[in-house]
Protein backbone atom coordinates (compact mmCIF):
# COMPACT_ATOMS: atom_id res chain seq x y z
CA UNK A 1 0.00 0.00 0.00
CA UNK A 2 1.30 3.46 -0.96
CA UNK A 3 1.50 5.84 2.01
CA UNK A 4 0.10 9.33 1.47
CA UNK A 5 2.35 12.29 2.13
CA UNK A 6 1.05 15.25 4.08
CA UNK A 7 2.80 18.50 3.27
CA UNK A 8 3.14 21.45 5.66
CA UNK A 9 5.30 23.62 3.43
CA UNK A 10 2.60 26.26 2.92
CA UNK A 11 2.10 26.68 6.67
CA UNK A 12 5.86 26.90 7.29
CA UNK A 13 6.31 29.35 4.43
CA UNK A 14 3.50 31.69 5.46
CA UNK A 15 4.66 31.54 9.10
CA UNK A 16 7.95 33.01 7.89
CA UNK A 17 6.17 35.61 5.78
CA UNK A 18 7.52 34.28 2.50
CA UNK A 19 5.70 34.21 -0.82
CA UNK A 20 5.91 31.20 -3.12
CA UNK A 21 8.18 33.19 -5.42
CA UNK A 22 10.54 34.11 -2.57
CA UNK A 23 10.76 30.52 -1.36
CA UNK A 24 11.28 29.32 -4.93
CA UNK A 25 14.09 31.81 -5.33
CA UNK A 26 15.77 30.77 -2.07
CA UNK A 27 15.48 27.08 -2.98
CA UNK A 28 16.56 27.62 -6.60
CA UNK A 29 13.44 26.08 -8.10
CA UNK A 30 10.49 27.49 -10.02
CA UNK A 31 7.32 28.84 -8.38
CA UNK A 32 5.48 26.06 -10.23
CA UNK A 33 7.44 23.45 -8.26
CA UNK A 34 6.71 25.11 -4.91
CA UNK A 35 3.02 25.35 -5.80
CA UNK A 36 2.77 21.70 -6.88
CA UNK A 37 4.57 20.59 -3.70
CA UNK A 38 2.25 22.68 -1.51
CA UNK A 39 -0.84 21.35 -3.27
CA UNK A 40 0.34 17.75 -2.94
CA UNK A 41 0.41 17.30 -6.72
CA UNK A 42 4.12 16.58 -6.68
CA UNK A 43 6.11 14.59 -4.12
CA UNK A 44 9.56 16.21 -3.94
CA UNK A 45 12.80 14.27 -3.91
CA UNK A 46 14.70 13.84 -0.66
CA UNK A 47 17.16 16.46 -1.86
CA UNK A 48 14.48 19.07 -2.47
CA UNK A 49 12.70 18.21 0.79
CA UNK A 50 15.93 18.72 2.73
CA UNK A 51 16.66 21.91 0.83
CA UNK A 52 13.22 23.33 1.61
CA UNK A 53 13.65 22.39 5.28
CA UNK A 54 17.01 24.16 5.37
CA UNK A 55 15.67 27.27 3.66
CA UNK A 56 12.66 27.40 6.00
CA UNK A 57 14.84 26.65 9.04
CA UNK A 58 12.89 23.60 10.21
CA UNK A 59 13.41 19.85 10.38
CA UNK A 60 12.23 17.99 7.29
CA UNK A 61 9.77 16.04 9.46
CA UNK A 62 8.00 19.32 10.20
CA UNK A 63 7.41 19.87 6.51
CA UNK A 64 6.44 16.37 5.45
CA UNK A 65 4.77 13.53 7.26
CA UNK A 66 2.98 10.34 6.37
CA UNK A 67 -0.80 10.54 6.62
CA UNK A 68 -2.06 9.27 9.96
CA UNK A 69 1.14 10.06 11.86
Amino acid at each position, binding site marked *: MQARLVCHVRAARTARGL*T*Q*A*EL*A*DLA*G*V*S*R*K*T*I*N*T*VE*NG*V*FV*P*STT*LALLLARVLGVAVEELFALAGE
Partner: protein
Amino acid sequence: MTETQQAGERFLRWRARLLPLTAIALIVGNAVLSGSAPRSVQDVLSVLAVVVSGFTLVMTGGLLPGRLRRLAEDESTAQHRAMALRVGYIAAVACALGQYVAALFVPLSAHQALQIVLMTAIAAPMISFGAQEAQALRDAG
Protein backbone atom coordinates in the same frame (compact mmCIF):
# COMPACT_ATOMS: atom_id res chain seq x y z
CA MET B 1 9.88 37.93 -7.70
CA THR B 2 13.50 38.15 -8.83
CA GLU B 3 14.53 38.81 -12.40
CA THR B 4 15.75 35.22 -12.80
CA GLN B 5 12.42 33.86 -11.56
CA GLN B 6 10.52 36.13 -13.93
CA ALA B 7 12.71 35.17 -16.88
CA GLY B 8 12.38 31.49 -15.93
CA GLU B 9 8.58 31.72 -15.81
CA ARG B 10 8.47 33.53 -19.13
CA PHE B 11 10.49 30.71 -20.68
CA LEU B 12 8.32 28.03 -19.03
CA ARG B 13 5.12 29.66 -20.32
CA TRP B 14 6.58 30.13 -23.78
CA ARG B 15 7.72 26.50 -23.90
CA ALA B 16 4.35 25.20 -22.66
CA ARG B 17 2.56 27.16 -25.40
CA LEU B 18 5.02 26.33 -28.14
CA LEU B 19 5.22 22.56 -27.69
CA PRO B 20 1.64 21.63 -28.65
CA LEU B 21 1.90 23.99 -31.63
CA THR B 22 5.16 22.34 -32.68
CA ALA B 23 3.51 18.93 -32.43
CA ILE B 24 0.58 20.09 -34.57
CA ALA B 25 2.96 21.61 -37.12
CA LEU B 26 4.83 18.33 -37.20
CA ILE B 27 1.72 16.22 -37.73
CA VAL B 28 0.27 18.55 -40.38
CA GLY B 29 3.61 18.93 -42.16
CA ASN B 30 4.15 15.22 -42.18
CA ALA B 31 0.63 14.51 -43.43
CA VAL B 32 1.06 17.01 -46.26
CA LEU B 33 4.47 15.70 -47.21
CA SER B 34 3.52 12.04 -47.05
CA GLY B 35 1.11 12.61 -49.95
CA SER B 36 3.67 14.16 -52.25
CA ALA B 37 6.45 12.12 -53.78
CA PRO B 38 9.32 12.41 -54.36
CA ARG B 39 10.34 14.65 -51.47
CA SER B 40 12.89 17.38 -51.78
CA VAL B 41 15.81 17.71 -49.40
CA GLN B 42 14.26 20.99 -48.26
CA ASP B 43 11.02 19.21 -47.22
CA VAL B 44 12.90 16.60 -45.25
CA LEU B 45 15.06 19.26 -43.58
CA SER B 46 12.04 21.34 -42.56
CA VAL B 47 10.37 18.34 -40.87
CA LEU B 48 13.68 17.44 -39.25
CA ALA B 49 14.09 21.00 -37.95
CA VAL B 50 10.65 20.85 -36.30
CA VAL B 51 11.45 17.44 -34.77
CA VAL B 52 14.82 18.58 -33.44
CA SER B 53 13.49 21.85 -31.98
CA GLY B 54 10.53 20.07 -30.36
CA PHE B 55 12.76 17.34 -28.96
CA THR B 56 15.22 19.92 -27.64
CA LEU B 57 12.42 21.82 -25.89
CA VAL B 58 11.06 18.65 -24.29
CA MET B 59 14.39 17.23 -23.20
CA THR B 60 16.44 20.30 -22.27
CA GLY B 61 16.22 23.88 -21.08
CA GLY B 62 17.43 24.98 -24.47
CA LEU B 63 20.33 27.37 -24.62
CA LEU B 64 19.54 29.21 -21.42
CA PRO B 65 22.34 30.36 -19.12
CA GLY B 66 23.13 28.32 -15.96
CA ARG B 67 20.74 29.50 -13.18
CA LEU B 68 17.88 30.06 -15.58
CA ARG B 69 18.34 26.62 -17.06
CA ARG B 70 18.30 24.98 -13.62
CA LEU B 71 15.05 26.83 -12.96
CA ALA B 72 13.54 25.64 -16.22
CA GLU B 73 14.75 22.11 -15.53
CA ASP B 74 13.74 21.72 -11.92
CA GLU B 75 12.05 18.75 -10.28
CA SER B 76 8.45 19.30 -11.33
CA THR B 77 9.65 19.74 -14.91
CA ALA B 78 11.59 16.49 -14.70
CA GLN B 79 8.48 14.74 -13.41
CA HIS B 80 6.38 16.16 -16.25
CA ARG B 81 9.04 15.05 -18.72
CA ALA B 82 9.09 11.51 -17.33
CA MET B 83 5.30 11.35 -17.61
CA ALA B 84 5.40 12.78 -21.15
CA LEU B 85 7.91 10.15 -22.25
CA ARG B 86 5.69 7.45 -20.75
CA VAL B 87 2.72 8.90 -22.64
CA GLY B 88 4.80 8.86 -25.85
CA TYR B 89 5.75 5.23 -25.36
CA ILE B 90 2.16 4.16 -24.66
CA ALA B 91 0.87 6.21 -27.62
CA ALA B 92 3.44 4.65 -29.95
CA VAL B 93 2.57 1.12 -28.82
CA ALA B 94 -1.17 1.82 -29.08
CA CYS B 95 -0.66 3.34 -32.52
CA ALA B 96 1.37 0.32 -33.69
CA LEU B 97 -1.30 -2.06 -32.41
CA GLY B 98 -4.02 0.01 -34.09
CA GLN B 99 -2.13 -0.10 -37.34
CA TYR B 100 -1.66 -3.84 -37.04
CA VAL B 101 -5.43 -4.27 -36.83
CA ALA B 102 -6.14 -1.62 -39.49
CA ALA B 103 -3.66 -3.24 -41.89
CA LEU B 104 -5.88 -6.33 -41.91
CA PHE B 105 -8.58 -4.26 -43.66
CA VAL B 106 -6.78 -1.33 -45.29
CA PRO B 107 -3.58 -1.67 -47.34
CA LEU B 108 -0.79 0.20 -45.57
CA SER B 109 2.83 0.37 -46.69
CA ALA B 110 5.61 -0.31 -44.22
CA HIS B 111 6.92 3.19 -44.87
CA GLN B 112 3.58 4.81 -44.05
CA ALA B 113 3.14 2.67 -40.96
CA LEU B 114 6.59 3.52 -39.67
CA GLN B 115 6.03 7.20 -40.31
CA ILE B 116 2.73 7.26 -38.40
CA VAL B 117 4.20 5.44 -35.40
CA LEU B 118 7.24 7.71 -35.33
CA MET B 119 5.17 10.87 -35.58
CA THR B 120 2.93 9.63 -32.76
CA ALA B 121 5.95 8.78 -30.62
CA ILE B 122 7.36 12.26 -31.15
CA ALA B 123 4.20 14.38 -31.08
CA ALA B 124 2.50 12.75 -28.06
CA PRO B 125 5.26 13.64 -25.54
CA MET B 126 5.38 17.20 -26.88
CA ILE B 127 1.65 17.66 -26.35
CA SER B 128 1.67 15.89 -22.99
CA PHE B 129 4.67 17.81 -21.65
CA GLY B 130 3.27 21.14 -22.84
CA ALA B 131 -0.15 20.41 -21.32
CA GLN B 132 1.29 19.35 -17.93
CA GLU B 133 3.55 22.37 -17.75
CA ALA B 134 0.72 24.73 -18.77
CA GLN B 135 -1.56 23.22 -16.13
CA ALA B 136 1.08 23.58 -13.38
CA LEU B 137 1.75 27.18 -14.41
CA ARG B 138 -1.96 27.97 -14.43
CA ASP B 139 -2.34 26.46 -10.95
CA ALA B 140 0.60 28.53 -9.70
CA GLY B 141 -1.26 31.65 -10.90
